[in-house]
């Protein structure tokens, strides 16, 4: 595979530190510009929904946050598997760095969902399969963060963390397909699935801008956190001092 040597090189801490630093220079302006564009368009340009009226605009932050909460967990599971196979410091640090951002995105999805639920369903919270499995995801993130901070032996903690992360991955398809498997109050998938409610083209475009903005912001946060966690972990080595000198 032609791309493999570069991926292999990325597992070297100094190379990862420098590459992540370069990526941040692209991701931060992208997140800010797309965020401004997406929020502006969602509040000022997007048309009203025929059924929900204006309150549907919450969807422009709720849906990307919910997607990110699941995507970041899947990514963390990917790094957990990588860590079990290769045991590199980069995979361990990426796994740890993904957890807080994932937890914040899950929290944002739950709060925005509750705010949308009150005028739409008449209740901030219902014990619906989608909502309950998303709440379970928040607890999973918090539990994994607690595991990451409690045990003293870092290498052993990394392995335990990787194992728990992979086991918790079973919740992701449960969240995604909960609206298909069960008769839930939560509406079905907005995009992609057959028979899903159709969305106007301009609404889809604005949702795409908001999703890309949140994706860039989360990628920037995770990479920035991973860089400094890696530098802290390897502070005995010469490279972190060279990088900040």
């Amino acid at each position, binding site marked *: 595979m032609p791309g493999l040597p570069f991926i292999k090189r990325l597992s070297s801490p100094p190379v990862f530190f420098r590459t992540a630093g370069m990526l941040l220079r692209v991701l931060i302006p992208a997140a800010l510009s797309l965020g401004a564009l997406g929020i502006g368009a969602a509040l000022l340009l997007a048309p009203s929904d025929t059924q929900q009226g204006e309150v549907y605009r919450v969807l422009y932050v709720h849906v990307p946050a919910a997607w990110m909460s699941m995507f970041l967990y899947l990514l963390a599971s990917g790094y957990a598997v990588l860590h079990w196979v290769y045991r590199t410091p980069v995979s361990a640090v990426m796994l740890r760095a993904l957890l807080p951002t994932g937890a914040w995105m899950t929290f944002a999805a739950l709060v*925005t969902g509750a705010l949308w639920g009150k005028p739409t369903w008449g209740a901030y919270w219902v014990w619906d399969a989608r909502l309950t499995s998303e709440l379970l995801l928040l607890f999973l993130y918090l539990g994994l963060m607690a595991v990451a901070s409690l045990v003293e032996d870092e290498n052993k903690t990394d392995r335990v963390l990787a194992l728990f992360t992979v086991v918790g991955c079973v919740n992701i398809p449960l969240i995604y397909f909960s609206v298909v498997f069960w008769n839930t109050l939560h509406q079905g998938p907005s995009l992609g699935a057959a028979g899903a409610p159709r969305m106007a083209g301009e609404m889809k475009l604005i949702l795409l801008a908001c999703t890309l903005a949140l994706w860039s912001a989360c990628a920037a946060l995770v990479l920035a956190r991973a860089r400094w966690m890696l530098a*802290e972990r390897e502070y005995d080595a010469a490279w972190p*001092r060279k990088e900040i000198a």
Partner: protein
Amino acid sequence: MAAKGNRMSTSLTIALSFAATLACIAIDCTLVLRKRRAVKRLLQDELAQETP
């Protein structure tokens, strides 16, 4: 009157949702910056000790 109240409550719901999401990103950003500052200080102290 009731329609005006509904409109205000809808605007408040939308504003709160956007604000909550931005606040989550801002808090996470603050945590990352704190980490960066702490690690940089640690490394700079190490560097200062090494320099004769």
